[in-house]
């Protein structure tokens, strides 16, 4: 907290943050610059009691561009716990079930987290690589109504890994990474989930943990270190791993009749972790594929409009529609993303329209294009 206060003191009031903020474009009156200024004048004042503290998406557009290096998302995050204590809670989407699922995982519960994997590939209880599946098994049962099957992502990752000769650890005892709890002011829940995960991974003996989810990767890489010190394993994102290992693996991809494809940078992978190149390198393995960039990409990529399953609003919908239209304008018919939540949010926004755009996750798409693969599903 002291660090963030020190940081906010260096604000030069240029307004770059507010000018960059996608929320302030839709929600007039929301201004990161003014929030910081007000917090300096009265630290326990209106920020803790207003709706603004929950409106921030923590998409990091502002902090990416701030000339004084103020980490506005972190500033907001560090005040959310206090806001909750003051009785100011966020509006939880989907009747709060995703928050309930995360809280339930802090207990000594029995999960069925590996059923999906038994059907498609080989994995073990101990080994060098640990595949951190994250919330995909829970998303899979929650978002069927959108005709989405998030476990396809996990299955595709496992099949790709197996084909590259890696049989990872997948654990029934894994927990949610705690990202959403952390960003919605529930540090106690985050701590419990995180300590479970560190123990589970340690007991597997893994040296490398692979993440298909950007949020899990980002949370482990930054916040697990902050809370638990140096981790006894390396944290690697699947796009990094694939970009590094695919050239050496004997896997080939097939041409397809798909028109051009485009890529949506998830906030946690792009701006928050600086991983822009690896996913793009993966597209180069696909023969006869035209990859086109959207008008706003990489560090300028628009956020998918909602974070931590809260405060979904007309503002979120407006941003999602804007992003979908931007993708359509490139001429691409397939929008690829590396984040299950971006896929869910953009698919949800698209469901009410007649837009001809497929929103796909990167691993499922790669597997679909893999030569000689009949295992992929649905």
């Amino acid at each position, binding site marked *: 907290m002291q660090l963030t206060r020190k940081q906010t003191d260096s604000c030069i009031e240029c307004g770059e943050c507010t000018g960059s903020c996608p929320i302030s474009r839709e929600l007039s009156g929301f201004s990161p610059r003014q929030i910081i200024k007000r917090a300096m004048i009265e630290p326990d004042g209106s920020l803790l009691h207003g709706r603004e503290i929950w409106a921030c998406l923590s998409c990091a557009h502002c902090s990416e561009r701030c000339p004084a290096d103020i980490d506005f998302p972190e500033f907001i995050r560090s005040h959310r716990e206090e806001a909750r204590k003051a009785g100011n809670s966020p509006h939880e989407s*989907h009747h709060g079930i995703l928050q309930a699922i995360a809280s339930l995982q802090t207990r000594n519960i029995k999960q069925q987290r590996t059923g999906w994997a038994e059907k498609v590939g080989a994995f073990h209880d101990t080994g060098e690589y640990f595949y951190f599946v994250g919330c995909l098994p829970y998303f899979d049962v929650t978002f069927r109504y959108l005709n989405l099957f998030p476990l396809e992502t996990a299955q595709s990752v496992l099949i790709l890994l197996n084909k590259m000769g890696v049989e990872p650890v997948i654990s029934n005892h894994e927990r949610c990474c705690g990202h959403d709890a952390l960003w919605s002011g529930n540090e106690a829940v985050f701590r419990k989930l995180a300590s479970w995960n560190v123990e589970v991974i340690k007991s597997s003996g893994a040296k490398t943990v692979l993440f298909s989810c950007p949020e899990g990767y980002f949370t482990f890489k930054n916040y697990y270190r902050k809370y638990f010190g140096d981790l006894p394993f390396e944290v690697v994102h699947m796009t990094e791993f694939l970009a590094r290992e695919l050239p050496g693996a004997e896997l080939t991809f097939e041409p397809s009749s798909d028109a051009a494809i485009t890529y949506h940078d998830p906030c946690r992978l792009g701006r928050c972790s600086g991983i822009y190149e690896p996913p793009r390198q993966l597209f180069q393995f696909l023969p006869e594929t035209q990859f086109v960039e959207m008008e706003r990409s990489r560090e300028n990529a628009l956020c998918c409009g909602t974070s931590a399953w809260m405060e979904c609003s007309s503002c979120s919908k407006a941003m999602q529609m804007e992003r979908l239209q931007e993708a359509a304008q490139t001429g691409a018919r397939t929008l690829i993303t590396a984040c299950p939540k971006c896929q869910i949010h953009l698919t949800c926004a698209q469901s009410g329209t007649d837009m001809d755009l497929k929103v796909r996750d990167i691993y499922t798409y790669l597997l679909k294009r893999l030569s000689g693969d009949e295992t992929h599903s649905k």
Partner: protein
Amino acid sequence: MSSLEQLRIVAFVCNWCAYAGADMAGVSRMQYPTNVRLIRLMCTGRVHHGFLLRAFLKGADGVLVSG
């Protein structure tokens, strides 16, 4: 907590059938376990899966939806 009587069960019941059934049981002086807590709804169509998870989160050992 091994005994069934000690478990806390939350039951979401429909006003028009399950709740009426429970009421009928009471009127007929039939006994049913006291560890079941009824929550009456005008229709069990009102039940969202968030309700079930919330019940577990608040410490229920089991949830019954009847209607």
